[in-house]
């Protein structure tokens, strides 16, 4: 049925191998880029075929597994390299291959002339491969392979400009923080495996088997432990509090990388993982609460930081963190479908935004380079007025911005609104719901504010670089612009496959296709919820839903208005505001000093402790004990030597002494 699904991951792997091993010899950028992009395009085609095939099946039969080979078999444990085809994985491979292809294409233009061009594309293909493994893997371990693999590629690509120390640092930070998450992932895996095995004799890590036996799991208790562990994994990968700090730093990588890895695909892996194991998470109200709260906090917190950043990519990075917070909020309130929906729309508009910013940076960089200026090409304070210079970029960027801001009619609106409504109305968190909704709504307002601040600072007003450089600003080539257009288009229309029920009813009974499509995946959760429905009661009030929708749109509009006021109409205010509240601004600008805090409470103590263990414990105590024994023996050696006086009478005394002691012991005994 899905026999050729193995092509999806294998094509990028082949691309990786060709470019990685021979890229240096090929040299021709078109060939290298063509191989890489072609491989992903191939995957995209196969993905399309796969999803079409899947859709042709009745919705109850939309699950298939394709085993490639048996990977690790030991004792009770078995993990195959096998792929799981179901609606969820299909939507993910569509996103990964589709957006991935566009970004590959874009990269050909963006990375033109870079040293290590082949290396870049090799890594990018490797990333795509890993991402496919992650989403297609039919068991936790294979998912973990992809999970680690994307982390690795992220590390490599962040550190692409390895001669910059900050790039190396950022890569390492990303990897290590991801590892902290992996620690949780592994523990979750172990606990689940051990628990199911030892209590029910079901030794499995296969998703389908786990789902089928999920009814054996209790509510709360061990499941809370398992899910919290997995959630720790998700926070690492998806940059949630407390492990979010690596993502803004990850902007050291080339911009298309940020678009692909740190916006559209990899960082959403955590969301995917939770959705994949929704039947677990739904069984632990505690974990859901934790996820929802952390998601909401992240959404709000990152948004605040986003308002004060001047680096265009950093704004987008914090925006990503914030949006991921939304997705987790969705997961936390049990709105798995909505979360995945937002994941998809976010992939469209955030990829578009990143690529757009990349086009801007690319252009700025070229211009500044020509003008021999050392100004920062990514600093928005150097930009301004670019809309005339780069009209296509501006147009696409604006569309995507509107989408993210949640203006009705654009994709972001549908997905975000669905989440906010679920946050308010879900049956899981009781009184907390209002707070969750409130945080989400405020974050939405902040999002609208900082995104439009970005647009205004970049594209409106006067250009702030030297006139000489200004002349060199120009629109990007087609290979760059084309992906922007496609993504912008998707940002606009992508939301219509998942129109919320209330709206759908109004405009003529359009169902929420997306939710329908995904519902087999969340079957077990729904069954669980149905069983426990009496215990929880959600809110179902159409009028209220409309009201809340209106409120959030209003908040977004307010945000836009403020941004317009501050950065277009009355540009003096921000400076005055900063002057009025210097401490606040400094705190926000410096990201609330979270990095410093981590350094202070974790990194430095670890290093100091390591130093102590080495210089103090290893050398002084352990080796000291060893050498101490040796030295003591040696000291005795010196002592014994001195007893050997060379004087005959002493020797005779020694003998006599020996005789006397012997005799007296044995005779007096």
């Amino acid at each position, binding site marked *: 049925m899905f026999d050729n699904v193995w092509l999806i991951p294998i094509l990028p792997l082949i691309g990786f191998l060709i470019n990685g091993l021979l890229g240096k010899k090929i040299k021709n950028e078109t060939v290298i880029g063509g191989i890489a992009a072609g491989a992903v395009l191939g995957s995209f085609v196969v993905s399309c075929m796969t999803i079409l095939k899947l859709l042709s099946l009745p919705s109850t039969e939309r699950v298939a597994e394709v085993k490639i080979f048996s990977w690790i078999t030991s004792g009770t444990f078995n993990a195959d390299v096998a792929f799981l085809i179901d609606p969820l994985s299909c939507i993910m491979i569509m996103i990964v291959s589709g957006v991935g292809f566009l970004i590959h294409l874009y990269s050909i233009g963006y990375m033109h002339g870079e040293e290590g061009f082949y290396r870049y594309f090799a890594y990018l293909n490797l990333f795509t491969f890993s991402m496919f493994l992650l989403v297609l893997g039919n068991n936790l371990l294979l998912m973990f392979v992809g999970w680690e693999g994307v982390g690795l590629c992220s590390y490599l690509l962040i550190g692409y400009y390895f001669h910059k120390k900050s790039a190396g640092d950022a890569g390492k930070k990303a990897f290590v923080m991801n590892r902290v998450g992996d620690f949780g992932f592994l523990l979750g895996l172990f606990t689940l495996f051990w628990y199911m095995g030892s209590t029910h004799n079901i030794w499995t890590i296969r998703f389908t088997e786990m789902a089928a036996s999920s009814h054996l799991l209790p509510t709360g208790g061990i499941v809370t432990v398992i899910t919290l562990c997995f959630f720790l994994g998700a926070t690492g990968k998806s940059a949630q509090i407390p492990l979010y700090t690596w993502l803004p730093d990850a902007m050291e990588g080339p911009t298309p990388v940020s678009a692909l890895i740190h916006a559209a695909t990899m960082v959403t892996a955590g969301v995917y993982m939770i959705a994949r194991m929704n039947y677990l998470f739904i069984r632990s109200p505690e974990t859901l609460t934790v996820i929802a709260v952390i998601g909401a906090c992240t959404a709000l917190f990152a948004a605040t930081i986003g308002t004060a950043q001047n680096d265009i990519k950093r704004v987008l990075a914090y925006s990503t963190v914030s949006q991921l917070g939304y997705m987790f909020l969705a997961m936390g309130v049990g709105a798995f479908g909505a979360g995945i929906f937002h994941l998809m729309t976010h992939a469209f508009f955030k990829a578009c935004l990143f690529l757009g910013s990349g086009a801007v940076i690319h252009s700025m960089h070229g211009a500044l380079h020509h003008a021999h200026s050392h100004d920062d090409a990514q600093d928005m304070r150097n930009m301004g007025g670019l809309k005339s210079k780069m009209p296509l970029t501006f147009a696409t960027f604006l569309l995507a911005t509107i989408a993210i801001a949640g203006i009705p009619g654009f994709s972001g609106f549908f997905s975000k609104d669905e989440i906010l409504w679920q946050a308010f109305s879900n049956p899981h968190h009781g009184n907390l719901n209002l707070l969750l909704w409130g945080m989400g709504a405020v974050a939405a307002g902040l999002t609208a504010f900082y995104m439009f601040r970005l647009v205004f600072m970049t594209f409106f007003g006067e250009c702030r670089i030297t006139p000489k450089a200004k002349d060199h600003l120009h629109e990007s080539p087609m290979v760059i612009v084309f992906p922007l257009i496609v993504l912008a288009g998707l940002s606009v229309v992508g939301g219509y496959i998942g129109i919320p029920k209330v709206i759908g009813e109004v405009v003529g009974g359009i169902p929420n296709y997306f939710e329908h499509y995904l519902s087999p995946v969340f079957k077990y959760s729904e069954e669980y919820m149905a069983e426990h429905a009496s215990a929880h009661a959600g809110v179902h009030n159409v009028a209220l839903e409309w009201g809340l929708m209106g409120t959030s749109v209003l908040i977004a509009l307010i945000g836009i208005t403020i941004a317009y006021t501050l950065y277009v109409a009355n540009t003096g205010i921000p400076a005055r505001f900063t002057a009025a509240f210097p401490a606040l601004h400094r705190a926000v600008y410096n990201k609330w000093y979270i990095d410093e805090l981590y350094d202070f409470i974790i990194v430095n103590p670890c290093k100091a402790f390591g130093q102590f263990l080495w210089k103090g414990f290893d050398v002084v105590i352990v080796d000291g004990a060893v050498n101490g024994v040796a030295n003591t023996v040696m000291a005795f050696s010196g002592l014994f030597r001195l007893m*050997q006086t*060379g*004087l*005959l*009478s002493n020797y005779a005394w020694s003998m006599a002494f020996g005789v006397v002691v012997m005799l007296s012991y044995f005779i007096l005994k």
Partner: protein
Amino acid sequence: MANLNSYLIISAILFSIGTVGVLTRKNAIVIFMCIELMLNAVNLTFVALSRHLGNLDGQVFVFFIMTVAAAEAAVGLALMISFYNNKESIDVDDVHLMKW
């Protein structure tokens, strides 16, 4: 006849005197004489025991001891002489070239 124990005690005392002499005296020849004293104490023991036990083994032993002592004396004195040739002393405290 004095009983066996008297002989044994006498010889033990002689042996001890010899031992103490070895331990305290510094002149090599005197030390050697003290050793001879010890050997003679042994001889006395043997003879007394032989007499007491009524067999001759002990007395035969004494002959051997005396013979051996003579041989030892010959070699020992030769060694002392050759030491004296080099060091012009037979004080054992001067025998300290090798130590530690």
